[in-house]
């Protein structure tokens, strides 16, 4: 069932209170982030429709926004999403090698999920960590100065978390 807990509903209310009366559409981006986190790491049509109902919006208004921003996943992703930056400054510092290494290690291509549903590999554009390259986004944080050893350790860490 796609329903927020009472606590999450209070959070939604709190967010709406940040904007002028009648401007609750402004809460759409933050609420979509919450929904994605709560309901499996991606936004299904059902999830988006639920958010539309909460904010008194037409479903289409939600789809339109969700499809514009790259952080919203409109398809299911693995439990652990690895998003490696590939823009110039990271490329100079070896992001291509890191991407190749992950592909090889997990035996998937960019954009794919491992058959066990654990990992998805994505490439992304500059995340504002160019001085700490190569880097990736993992969950709510960044992993920086990546090396093959750090990738090995991260993948182990994820597997352990899953047991």
């Amino acid at each position, binding site marked *: 069932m796609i329903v927020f807990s009472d606590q999450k509903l209070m959070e939604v209310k709190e967010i709406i209170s*940040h*904007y*002028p009366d009648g*401007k609750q*559409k*402004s*809460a*759409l*981006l*933050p609420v*979509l*982030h919450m929904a994605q986190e709560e309901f499996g790491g991606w936004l299904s049509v059902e999830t988006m429709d639920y958010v539309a109902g909460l904010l008194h919006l037409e479903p289409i208004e939600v789809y*339109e*926004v969700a499809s*514009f*921003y*790259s*952080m*919203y996943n409109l398809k299911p992703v693995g439990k652990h999403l690895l998003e490696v930056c*590939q*823009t*110039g*400054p990271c*490329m*100079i*510092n070896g992001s291509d090698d890191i991407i190749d290494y992950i592909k090889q290690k997990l035996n998937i291509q960019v954009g794919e999920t491992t058959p066990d549903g654990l990992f998805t590999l994505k490439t*992304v*554009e*500059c*995340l*504002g*960590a*160019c*001085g*700490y*390259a190569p880097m990736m*986004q993992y969950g*709510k*944080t*960044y992993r920086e100065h990546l090396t093959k050893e750090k990738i090995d350790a991260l993948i182990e860490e994820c597997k352990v978390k899953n047991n």
Partner: protein
Amino acid sequence: MTKKLLLEKIDVPGIKTYDVYRREGGYRSVEKALTMKPEEIVEEVKKSGLRGRGGAGFPTGLKWSFIAKPEGIPRHLVVNADESEPGTFKDRYLMEFIPHYLIEGMIVSSFALGSNVSYIYIRGEYAWITDILDQAIAEAKQQGWLGKNILGSGFDCEIYTQRGAGAYICGEETALLESLEGNRGNPRIKPPFPAVKGVWQRPTVVNNVETIAAVVPIINDGGEAYSKIGIGKSTGTKLISACGNINKPGVYEIDMTISVEEFIYSEEYCGGIPHGKRLKACIPGGSSVPILPANLLLTTAKGEKRLMNYESLSDGGFATGSMMGSGGFIVLDEDQCVVRHTYTLARFYRHESCGQCSPCREGTGWMEKILKKIESGNGEMKDIDLLWDIQRKIEGNTICPLGDAAAWPVAAAIRHFRDEFEWHVNNPELCLQQNYGLAHYADDIQVPA
């Protein structure tokens, strides 16, 4: 040593917390500002010569004086913390390690502008930094620096953070306001400008994080004192985020009188280029500004030492100069391939185009494809001219400056490194294995010991 303002206390243990920040003199500018008139604060900011640190360098005091004040309609300050221009990571540093600095600057600026509810629009990926800011805001509120009737002045102010969700275009101020309203980040046609009709059609000032932070020392020490730091129209200090092939990547606060050479080679800043390699090129102000070959980077076409400031970096226009931009300083050593680097930037802009205007939507896609073609050894000579032609057709023909931002890097790469593009075309196999030597560009550059 450069005089530090924003980063002066960054190494004080615990400076992230309210108690330490306050003990080190934090929030003094709010105490002072609330005894002044809002117009007097605007006047100090004008006197300081502060220019917007988000990229365009527009004078902040002047921008503030444009805000419309229609009766009965609330006004808003919105801080631009979208920071997505490749090479730029300075705002993040300030917010992550000394978050109260921004909050302090925002309270003073909100008072000057008459904003009772101000927002920080932060890029969605900076999720943990949003938590840090929320924490700082809660602390400030608990201590009475936010909320109703601050310090008994009668001024009310709330600050809220709002996370984006992955879109470079939302750094453009009108796209940012659309996004804050819960819409797609499509830039608006100007006029009306945000100062007249901004978020929810209300008068709004959008300023960069670093700009708003700089208001703190301006109020503490006075606009005139601030204006005496630096040179010409480049007053105060500037945060530079340095990356690429340098020994010490990171964020540096500079006084804008130092030379580019000193910035790259001195131990105080970038610490030179790793493994004794030679400097090939540099993008001095974020991915949108023109790339310069080593010789034009270190000295202007007139033969003067180039300095790290607005005027000097743009000396020579686009023919032989570049721009200060956002302060994202990307260094390329002799091993780097300019064609490949430019290709990654073109891919970035194609990915980030909002798609509203056809020259930008189609042009960025074509540029990416052609650069990929040349880079992978399949290019023809006429592709180089086609690339030049496409970038010219984008520039100036779009709703927002992202079109220009996509065109300039390509134009500059061809302008200064055309022989490298031609070499790729002429050596389709070789170019996959090795890079075009730099000897050609920087033989005459003396690498300081």
